[in-house]
């Protein structure tokens, strides 16, 4: 049985009695979510990286036509939507933990979390709208930028 030599992490001192650290089952749910979403994200992200960077022509082959070709199928729309939501919730929740650990002043913590929440909402809403309103064959696009399945202009 090995024991961890020095489990102390370089973190802020424990908060005093005035600071609420747990909200009952909410922290437990967050802990569980980090683990479940992590396992799902392995599949989603490794698949994403393999298809975009390894399988075809790699990063040099990525352009509008490549993205349009993927999002023309419902499967990739669902894949990317799920990846967006899970990664953003997992990442933002992880950042919340980091803020709680290092930002010692109540006001600093509050403002960092407001900033985090604002970026979270902005990016998730934007990304979701883009996936749902995407048109692989937009009118008036420059010649040669569209995927081959688009009707000739």
């Amino acid at each position, binding site marked *: 049985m090995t024991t961890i030599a020095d489990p102390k992490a370089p973190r802020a001192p424990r908060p005093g009695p005035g600071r609420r650290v747990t909200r009952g089952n909410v922290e437990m749910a967050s802990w569980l979510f980090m*683990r479940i979403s992590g396992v799902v994200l392995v599949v989603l992200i490794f698949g994403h990286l393999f298809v975009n*960077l390894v399988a075809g022509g790699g990063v040099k082959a990525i352009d509008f036509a490549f993205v349009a070709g993927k999002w023309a199928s419902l499967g990739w729309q669902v894949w990317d939507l799920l990846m967006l939501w899970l990664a953003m919730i997992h*990442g933002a929740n992880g*950042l919340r933990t980091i803020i709680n650990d290092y930002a010692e002043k109540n006001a600093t913590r509050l403002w960092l979390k407001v900033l985090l929440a604002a970026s979270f909402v902005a990016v998730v809403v*934007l990304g979701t*709208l883009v996936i749902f309103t995407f048109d692989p064959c937009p009118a008036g696009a420059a010649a040669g930028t569209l995927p081959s399945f688009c009707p000739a202009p």
Partner: protein
Amino acid sequence: MWSWVAHRVTGFAIFFFLLVHVLDTSLVRVAPETYNAVIGTYKNPVMGLGEAGLVAAIVFHAFNGLRIVLIDFWSKGVKYQKVLFWIVLGLFVVTMAGFLPRHLMHVFGGN
């Protein structure tokens, strides 16, 4: 302890890349030419090396994350946490050995 630091640093870095990555991908809704112009900057050698670093960060975070899950949920996880860490490093090396040559070939090769 060091695996924890690395897990935190990689998670932090990946999150900020994700914010930027959703923004650049959103340009597909502006115009094909706009998206192509911005994604074109991802194809130069300096960015290519950055992408390699980013993939390395994700691969480490992913395998080490699975190790954390095993430590928490597998009855023998705590006992084998050191061994699991070496397995994480082994899988990391194998995965990067598969990824790097192909990616660098794309970035630095003719096309």
